[in-house]
């Protein structure tokens, strides 16, 4: 039958636009950057942008799983601040007994990861066992962590001991083969995330839960456990991001991680994951993170407009980036 062929072709064209939409936006952005500044493509600039995008990026990968399975987490930014605070306090406290060295740092990293895991588990428990809307739970814990870090820091800034900072610094500023650690870790997390999302049961079940929880349950998917796991995973990744963040400035304060949650969620959605769940892709999120990172970078590299209007341009570009995949979104 002739109708069959046309029918098959049409959806595919749409899906393609959806697929490459964010990529196209990124490419356009890179072209604009190149046109505006010669140093844009320099090794130094690219490294800067990638390394500083790594925090949001690592978190956004975790956020992709949470959103894909129909959840949301507003607490990641303050959780990161809290984790950073706990790490710094721990390391400073251990310094006298353990002495200066890698040992303290390793313990600090472990504490950071555990605190993240713990934070994610609390969110997950309240959402799955407590059956409270994710929005409310994480809005609540967002306030709680933000308060706790302010309180821990006595309103000011918690600073890592200066010598310890020196030992820890290479974790942000160092690297191998000219690729700095945050970029490497981000890449690993992204690749790992992509594999988990596409090639494991867990990823499959996240999409199923987000698409139709009832169906997933009827298909013998342990909905609670999978949902819980997405929040724990996100918590751990917040820990990982913070482990990379602390060596950068060696400090944490109430201003740390403000609005990271919004940036992470925006990256996920720009990347093509659906806010209502059911479909998610990690590589899209990575592209989304890069888009956001490069928008800021390009705005700093030029003064085409009043700096007051940076936010407006950022807003316009975010919308435009998604317009590029509009046809695709319609398909859903």
């Amino acid at each position, binding site marked *: 039958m002739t109708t069959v062929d046309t029918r098959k072709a049409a959806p595919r064209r749409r899906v393609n636009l959806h697929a490459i939409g964010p990529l196209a936006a990124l490419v356009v952005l890179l072209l604009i950057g190149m046109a505006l*500044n010669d*140093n*844009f493509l*320099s090794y*130094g*600039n690219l490294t*800067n942008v990638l390394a*500083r995008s790594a925090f949001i990026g690592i978190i956004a990968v975790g956020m992709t799983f949470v959103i894909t399975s129909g959840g949301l987490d507003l607490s990641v930014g303050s959780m990161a601040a809290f984790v950073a605070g706990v790490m710094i306090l721990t390391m400073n406290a251990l310094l006298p007994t353990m002495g200066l060295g890698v040992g303290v740092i390793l313990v600090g990293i472990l504490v950071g990861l555990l605190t993240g895991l713990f934070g994610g588990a609390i969110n997950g428990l309240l959402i799955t066992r407590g059956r409270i809307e994710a929005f409310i739970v994480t809005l609540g814990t967002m306030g709680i962590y933000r308060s706790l870090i*302010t309180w821990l*820091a*006595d*309103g*000011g*800034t918690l*600073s890592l001991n200066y010598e310890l900072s020196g030992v820890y610094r290479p974790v942000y*500023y160092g690297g191998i083969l000219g690729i700095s650690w945050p970029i490497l870790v981000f890449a690993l997390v992204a690749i790992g995330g992509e594999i988990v999302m596409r090639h494991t049961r867990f990823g499959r079940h996240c999409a199923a839960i987000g698409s139709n929880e009832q169906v997933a349950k009827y298909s013998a998917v342990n909905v609670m456990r999978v949902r819980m796991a997405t929040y724990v995973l996100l918590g751990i990744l917040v820990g990982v991001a913070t482990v990379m963040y602390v060596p*950068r*400035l060696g*400090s944490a*304060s*109430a*201003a*740390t991680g*403000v609005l990271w949650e919004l940036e992470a969620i925006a990256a996920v959605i720009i990347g093509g994951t659906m806010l209502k769940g059911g479909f998610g892709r990690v590589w899209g999120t990575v592209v989304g993170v890069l888009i956001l990172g490069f928008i*800021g*970078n390009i705005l*700093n*590299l030029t*003064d085409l407009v009043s*700096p*007051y209007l*940076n936010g407006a341009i950022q807003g316009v570009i975010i919308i435009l980036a998604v317009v590029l995949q509009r046809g695709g979104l319609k398909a859903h």
Partner: protein
Amino acid sequence: ETIGISIPAATHGWAGGLNYHAQASVARLEEQFPDLDFVLATASDPAKQVSDIEDMVATRNIDALVVLPFESEPLTAPVARVADSGTFVTVVDRGLSQDGIEDLYVAGDNVGFGRVAGEYFAENLEDGAKIVVLRGIASTVDNERVEAFNAALEGSGIEVLGMEHGNWNRDTSFTVMQDYLSRFPEIDAVWAADDDMATGALQAIEQAGRSDEMWVVGGAGMKEIVARIRDNDKMLPVDVTYPPAMIATAIELTAMRFTSPAPVTGRFIIGSELITPDNAESYYFEDSPF
């Protein structure tokens, strides 16, 4: 008697210092004068601050109000109403937009803050030198400082390559400074307008390996920065004070009104001074978190 204190929340370093000094002086005074009650509220935006003041009046029957307005204009009318009801009002740092409302005014000198920094740049840089500026959160305070800074630079031949907002935030300043460094091959000095921003900027400069090329002037007098000036750090030649401890001064002066017979009114302007390696020791406070 009850004294109400309304200040911005600790959302950046300087405000954190402010919070610390406010709480410390409250604790001190409560011990010293058991008759005095204090109500401390912190606000994250002007509307919340107006609410806080309303609550203090409606439920806590305050006899005096110490307020550091988040912004001048929105707080003017509400504070005026408090003053009209006979409450003693102390305004700290940011003046209200109408004169004569407050009984006591304790403030830093924002114009001086920008001017002192600007004069230092003008004196220590040659004609044609290139600098970049990290501004604070877009606000009247920031505008005043930057205007005064620009005015002081006038005629010096110094070229300002860029002025972006670092939002009094270390991370943002780190990012902006990184991008300045990518963008401008030649930078002779940085005015970071705040010590938190200076901290972020220094890290970016260090990372780029251009520490020898430029120096940084921050502002406010953060402990770590003062220490580095004292230790003759070449990248941090000086700093300009803007002490968050002014809130403690204000609270103590207000408390004196109820504890001592001397009438307390007037204006106390705490000038912005230049911290240099020579005088740094006297600006260093070990216990302060800021």
